């Protein structure tokens, strides 16, 4: 039996066309883009082309696109770069303020904690409701005179909740108008759009974002390449010093083949986006209907409002890693927010923030779909999973 991969929120395979587009840039067109000779200029041209593709996809200008090593680096640069710059704007007695949510990816949360630890910023972590949504009024209330950054994830990677990025963008833009009139600090708006690229409108103008991070390997491009969009005029101080690459905001010789791959992948996403995500949504709904037939299993969040590619369940009386293990024996890949699967032995901060108890999170199981999954695969999972849960429940003590 062909293995069934249902962990696309973790990573995706490299698309065949993407791989083909990358190939010649390893040992044939290997020039350094900073060099004026033929080799260098061929590589330069390839990067420029990729940059244009990404810019077009995001509705941005090419000079607003920085290639990085991934969304984590993009996020670090956006947050740390902006805060470092604010040191010149805000008197030393006052700390710049960041507003983010309690359901961000660790890349945002740990970066914010780092800035707090350095004493460079204070941070508000907004709570979320049972579906994982932030409340716009909470956000408005949290704004302070020193607030210079709001950072909210577009689609949550663990449960698929879609945050109201557009509404937040509108709100911040209105508040900024007033603040500018009064000569106050501008609030910049960052979104981690890593999970959203394939499924939602990521036009930066429509979203009203100043900064947007994304990763190649979630959209069928390789691992190790990502993008930071920064709106013209967003004051960033680079966090990696060296040469003048990437608008002087990210030093280091460009990763040409991977950048080419990312450009190709995002173009493919754009071409396919018109067809919509009905197919994946249909598969996801089939999976949800099947899995919810198992007794004492709960779906996390509101599927009708969530991203079509993620379904997370809480299975009572079973631990997540054990389910993953037995699924893996049947060659099915899924994921879990159980403490047992995390190196730090902490249950998922996202599910805890949504109000679930640690013992519920213990039995969490995430399936995330991709473009190559089939109906037969979903049927197979629905057939196999009840037996696995039954087996593990039989092993558990009655409490």
């Amino acid at each position, binding site marked *: 039996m062909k293995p069934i991969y249902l*962990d696309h929120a973790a990573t995706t395979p490299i698309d065949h066309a993407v791989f083909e587009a990358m190939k010649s840039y390893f040992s044939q067109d290997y020039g350094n883009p900073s060099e004026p000779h033929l080799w260098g200029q061929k590589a330069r041209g390839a990067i420029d082309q990729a940059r244009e593709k990404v810019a077009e996809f995001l509705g941005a200008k090419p000079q607003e696109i920085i290639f990085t090593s991934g969304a984590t680096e993009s996020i670090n640069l956006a947050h740390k770069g902006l805060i470092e710059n604010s040191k010149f704007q805000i008197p030393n007695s006052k700390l710049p303020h960041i507003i983010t949510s309690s359901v961000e990816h660790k890349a945002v949360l740990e970066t914010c904690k780092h800035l707090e630890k350095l004493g460079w910023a204070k941070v508000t972590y907004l709570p979320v409701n049972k579906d994982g949504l932030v409340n716009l009024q909470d956000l408005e209330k949290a704004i302070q005179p020193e607030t210079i950054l709001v950072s909210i994830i577009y689609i949550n990677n663990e449960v698929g909740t879609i945050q109201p990025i557009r509404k937040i963008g509108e709100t911040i833009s209105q508040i900024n108008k007033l603040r500018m009139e009064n000569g106050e600090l501008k609030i910049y708006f960052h979104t981690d759009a890593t999970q959203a690229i394939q499924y939602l409108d990521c036009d930066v103008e429509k979203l009203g974002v100043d900064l947007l991070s994304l990763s190649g390997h979630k959209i069928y491009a390789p691992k190790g390449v990502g993008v930071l969009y920064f709106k013209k005029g967003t004051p960033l101080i680079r966090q990696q010093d060296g040469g003048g690459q990437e608008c002087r905001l990210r030093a280091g010789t460009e990763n040409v083949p991977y950048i080419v791959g990312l450009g190709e992948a995002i173009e493919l996403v754009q071409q396919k986006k018109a067809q919509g995500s009905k197919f994946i949504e249909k598969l996801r709904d089939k999976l949800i209907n099947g899995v919810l037939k198992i007794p004492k299993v709960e779906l996390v969040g509101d599927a009708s409002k969530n991203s079509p590619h993620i379904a997370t369940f809480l299975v009572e*009386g*079973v*631990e*997540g*890693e*054990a389910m*993953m*293990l*037995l699924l*893996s*024996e049947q060659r099915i*890949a899924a994921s879990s927010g*159980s*403490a*047992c*699967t995390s*190196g730090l*032995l902490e*249950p998922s901060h996202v599910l805890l923030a949504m109000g679930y108890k*640690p*013992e519920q*999170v*213990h039995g969490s199981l995430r399936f995330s779909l991709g473009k190559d999954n089939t109906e037969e695969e979903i049927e197979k999972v629905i057939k196999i999973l009840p037996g696995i849960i039954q087996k*593990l429940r*039989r*092993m*558990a*003590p*009655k*409490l």
Partner: protein
Amino acid sequence: MNFSQIYSKKVLEHVRNPQNMGEIKNPDGMATVGNKICGDIMRLYIKIEKKNGEEYIKDAKFQTLGCGAALATSSIITTMVKGKPLSETKKITNQAIAEALGGLPPAKMHCSLLAADALKKAIKNYRQTHKR
């Protein structure tokens, strides 16, 4: 995702075919231990038999809610104690359990502690309920 990279063959064998799983009705000793770190819960039942003035573990069974490592440590500890005199169970440390499984990943060593703790507490429970 390949669990054979994470766990030893022995661990996976015990997860696939757990030994002595289930409940002992009217056990002589029983303990339920929980791991506050990760949330796993393990229950161990023992039945004691006296032969020539010495106490033996005649039967041992487990019920566990937990990850692969927790299931495997609970399964193997039952095989390690069955038929052993109580006086010898002191040798069954968490290290011995992990070794019997062909090793555990560092992040899962606490599961072997859980099993060792369950055994210790089940014996203590037996001593408390069977005072001479």
